[in-house]
């Protein structure tokens, strides 16, 4: 009998633990997408964060980063939903409102919003403000300078920020060369090639070797696009129309061969004769 009374509490404890592990995930209500995408206004956050503004900025950034890590873009468009972009935009903007010196939200804005062409006219001034107050930093003015020309064709602002980057880097010739190219309104693919070359250089300097190879692959894709673009330009000069496809350029020996797409896709010409890859090279 005594043995039995000793056993009963242990039995119930064991059953309770098993039930706990089984039932807890079942009763945990999964947040709806709408609840997850809620962002407080920046002014309210500034007041309620009291002396922990910087910490709140960090948490907002981490929230956006972890969300991006788990979120899957739509298969057809390879883009997120508009409300998801809006939440990301608000969250990152709130983060830099709380701590305008914090680099990471700007970095994420650049990769997740600007390159996905979401509200560029709104995002770029926020990044430009960051470039203005981070007086020691050369990377942010470089991003801002590049983006102003590449996405908004605003040469004046672009050259201004590239000059800022050049001064802060102690006269890195790369920024001056890029500014000069923009002044001469060079082709945007060439600008993209220059941008990737700088990113590879930066990654090598910082020892981020894991990100060098993907960047190099993208660089090769852009170089392939540029090679075909030059052939298309020659074709247009000769025939005053765009070629039907890339093979036509090879047949006419304006192109030695169709370049290899290192990312596994293939190049094609759209209706207006623009060279594209089936891979999203942005």
């Amino acid at each position, binding site marked *: 009998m005594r043995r039995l009374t000793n056993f009963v509490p242990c039995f119930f404890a064991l059953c309770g633990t098993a039930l706990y592990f089984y039932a807890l995930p079942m009763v945990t209500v999964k947040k709806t997408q709408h609840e997850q995408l809620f962002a407080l206004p920046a002014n309210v956050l500034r007041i309620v964060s009291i*002396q922990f*503004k910087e910490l709140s900025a960090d948490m907002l950034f981490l929230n956006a980063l972890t969300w991006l890590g788990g979120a899957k873009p739509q298969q057809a468009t390879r883009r997120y939903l508009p409300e998801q972009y809006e939440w990301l935009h608000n969250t990152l903007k709130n983060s830099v409102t709380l701590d305008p010196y914090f680099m990471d939200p700007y970095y994420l804005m650049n990769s997740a919003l600007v390159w996905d062409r979401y509200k560029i006219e709104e995002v770029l001034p926020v990044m430009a403000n960051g470039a203005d107050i981070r007086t020691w930093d050369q990377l942010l003015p470089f991003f801002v300078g590049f983006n102003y020309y590449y996405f908004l064709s605003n040469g004046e602002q672009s050259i201004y920020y590239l000059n800022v980057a050049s001064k802060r880097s102690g006269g890195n010739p790369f920024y001056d060369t890029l500014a000069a190219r923009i002044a001469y309104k060079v082709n945007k693919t060439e600008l993209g090639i220059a941008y990737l070359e700088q990113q590879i250089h930066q990654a090598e300097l910082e020892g981020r070797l894991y990100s060098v190879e993907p960047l190099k692959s993208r660089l090769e894709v852009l170089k392939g696009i540029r090679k075909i673009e030059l052939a298309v330009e020659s074709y247009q000069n000769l025939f005053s129309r765009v070629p039907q496809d890339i093979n036509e350029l090879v047949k006419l020996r304006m192109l030695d061969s169709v370049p290899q797409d290192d990312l596994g896709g293939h190049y094609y010409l759209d209706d207006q004769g623009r060279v594209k890859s089936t891979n999203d090279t942005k």
Partner: protein
Amino acid sequence: MLQAIIKVTFLEGLRNKAVYGISLMAGLMMAFTVVLSGMILRDVGKVATDFTLSTATFASLLVVLFVGITILARDLERKTIYLALSRSVPRSRYLIARFLGLGLLQAFVIFLLLVASLVTLLLVKNMYASYFGTVSLGLVALAHLFVLVQMLLLTALSILFSMVASSPFVTFMLTTLAWLIGSSTQEVKMLIESAEPVRVSPVVKVLVTLAYYLFPNFTLFDLKATAAHGLSFSAGNAVFVLLYGLGYGVVVMSFAVLLFKRKELT
């Protein structure tokens, strides 16, 4: 006698179990900082500094609220205050000695937090040297000093509130409110000033302005962003903030002493 009261207050504070709980929480936060640093893209040093300084501020705030207030309240509740007063210690001296004892306890706790912060930051710097950024360890140390001054000011306020409040809970609430108001009035004032005049009622404006000047501006003592980004911070500015804290503290303690002299001890 003054020294004895300071020593007793300090030791009483150290023996309080809340101090161990707060220390454990701070230690875990510092360890978490090291783990978290691996998740940051570029500003690793900045985020680590934010976390360590926020931990220091929060932990020392908890010491004021859960240790400082309790010590004085227990003194009045258990009548141990008569031990000192019966030895012809003037009330003003007794109160100042209690304040200095609590100040010593705060200084000790913040010194430990400073050591923990520096160890954490050096560890993070060692792990992610390329991404440590422009963090200034000198300013991190100065930020801890400013946290100490801030908490001394809050301790003085808690003593003042304990002179008028009917229970330790009311003192706790008043001290917490004072810290919250003092930490946000600057932001609220700036928001109201930047808003359209029609949208803000004049009564609200007057109330906010009144709170802004009446309550201590605790944001002046917040150097997190300055230390995390290695921003310039002039010596003149530092002296002004320290004098502001000292001046405000002296005024608050003078009021507390005046009230304590008239307080009926039953």
